[in-house]
């Protein structure tokens, strides 16, 4: 076991700028190992001394990816045993608890006047309990559509969505959405808005009040606004109330659809910080949709980049930065830059493709 520590030392030696790059997550199940046998689950791989597990992927593996720990990230725990100078790595898929959310080959096609538009094409996602996942992509990449499908507000054309082990067939209070505009009800006070969902569940009024107070405190809304009407609140306060209104339902998954996009920079930064605090305190499973890469890097454990036309998962990044993260943290900056570069490449490629298509049409 002591050799394991050695290995991490070796990884340290390899340290360069690349090492800071976020882990690109590779699905181990299909990966090929330098060893003659395919690296599949429940396989035991023998490694010689100092040999590092490698998987073939679409790019030169970075130092971090060379370490076996990336297997861990996918929920495949590794067991490393040293015997006679040979390491054995056991890759095992142990039955973990049911993932909070599973999106299985989901496609969504919209019928418009101009014909069919594929908004989402074969999306697969697994989100574990307590994960903070950010979905980022250019506008029109279907990220909000996916959120609507998860929320059950819309039905996928193909594929299935499972939440907490139940097939999603419609909206339910286990998946509450915080919308960009807040969507608070103007005819109710702040307190009544937060109590709205509990009232639907016939929760007794004193319990309702206590819970609402708790969550309004959690989101940091000043007590003097508890009986205000919605139009009397600032944009930031509205989003705080919207988050409280969602959290009070104790959803299994909190879905957030660009909740801070309409706020000014200062308010946004404060709320991003507070959302991190809320997440650290409550460890809710959060799916957060944004078009802002920096925001995604700042908030997410995992950033999923969407590409458009048709909407699909382009890449996944693991963000391994200690919390609480600050927006001006150099690692946040670097990660943002790398992901943005990838995204730009994608956009350029797309516009190139689109232009090529146009030329054909014009001829």
């Amino acid at each position, binding site marked *: 076991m002591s050799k394991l520590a050695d290995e991490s030392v070796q990884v340290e030696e390899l340290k360069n700028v690349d090492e800071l790059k976020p882990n690109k997550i590779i699905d181990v199940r299909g990966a090929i190992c330098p060893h003659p046998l395919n690296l599949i689950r429940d396989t035991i791989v023998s490694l010689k001394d100092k040999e590092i597990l490698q998987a073939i992927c679409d790019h030169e593996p970075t130092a971090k990816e060379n370490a076996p720990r990336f297997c861990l990230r996918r929920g495949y725990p590794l067991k490393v045993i040293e015997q006679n100078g040979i390491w054995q790595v056991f890759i095992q898929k142990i039955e973990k608890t049911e993932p909070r959310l599973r999106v299985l080959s989901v496609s969504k096609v919209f019928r418009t006047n101009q014909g069919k538009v594929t908004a989402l094409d074969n999306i697969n996602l697994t989100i574990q309990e307590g994960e903070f996942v950010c979905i980022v992509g250019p506008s029109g990449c279907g990220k909000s559509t996916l959120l609507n499908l998860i*929320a*059950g*507000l819309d039905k996928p054309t193909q594929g299935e969505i499972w939440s907490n082990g139940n097939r999603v067939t*419609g*909206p*339910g*209070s286990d*998946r*509450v*959405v915080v*919308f960009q*505009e807040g*969507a608070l*009800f*103007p*005819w*109710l006070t702040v307190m009544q808005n937060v109590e*709205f*969902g509990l009232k*639907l*569940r016939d929760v007794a009024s004193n319990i309702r009040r206590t819970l609402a107070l708790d969550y309004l405190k959690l989101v940091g809304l000043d007590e003097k606004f508890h009986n205000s*009407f*919605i*139009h*009397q609140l600032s944009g930031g306060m509205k989003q705080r109330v919207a988050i409280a*209104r*969602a959290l009070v*339902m104790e959803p299994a998954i909190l*879905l957030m659809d660009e909740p801070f996009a309409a706020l000014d920079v200062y308010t946004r930064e404060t709320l991003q910080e507070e959302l991190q605090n809320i997440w650290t305190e409550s460890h809710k499973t959060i799916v957060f949709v944004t078009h802002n890469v920096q925001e995604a890097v700042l908030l997410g454990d995992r950033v999923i980049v969407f590409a458009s036309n048709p909407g699909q998962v382009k890449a996944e990044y693991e963000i391994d930065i200690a919390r609480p993260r600050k927006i001006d943290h150099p690692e946040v900056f670097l990660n943002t830059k790398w992901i943005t570069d990838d995204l730009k490449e994608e956009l350029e490629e797309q516009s190139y493709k689109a232009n090529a298509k146009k030329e054909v049409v014009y001829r």
Partner: protein
Amino acid sequence: MSKRFIKLALFYLILIGLWQGLALLKIWPEYIFPTPLGVLETLVTGFEDKTFIIGILISLKRILIGYGFSIVLGLFVGLLIGRVKTLDETVGSLVLGIQALPSICWLPLALLWFGLSESAMLAIVILGSLFSIIIGADTGVKNVPPIYVRAARTMGAKGFQLYTKVIMPAALPSIISGFKQGWSFAWRSLMAAELLYVGLGLGHLLMMGRELNDMNQVIAVMVVIIIIGIVVDRLIFARIENKVRERWGLA
């Protein structure tokens, strides 16, 4: 506020003064051009011998029954066609078409169907106000931001709850406007209908003034009709409307 009140008081004092002055010149006979004092006298005696009170009560009874019926039916139909597309395309278009008809034009039809009777009066009130109320509720429901419904659905609201907890409250400003408009249409058409019907209502008192060549009574009843219209519109509907608009943040 007080400044505005002084302006208003001065304006009406001068107006009544001019009226009294003109009347004192005796250019026209009194049955054509009454004096303010004469009108006031008629008002006082009208209330003293209770003919005005009875007239007001009878007219109010008619409008309350008819208007109440309109609210129940109009709200039901309006909320329904606001949400059901097929109904909107069929019933909705009919309602819009009928709404273009001035409510007093229902009078001949009501008279033919019900004769000169209490039912005809009620029919006029209902037909006068129903369509405004339907359209108010319908517009309100159609303009409910879809995001409210979506938000409520993710919090577990479904079916009828969506109507009572989200759609109706969200549509309330428009529903109230429909009520207000419906009321003023109903009041106008009732007064017109009562002119033709010997049924002791305010309209009937107005017509009686004409038949007796009593200009004082004509003006006095007109004043009563105006005051009731203003009181209901300003003190009841405008207040509710303002409160709702304020609360909804529309003001």
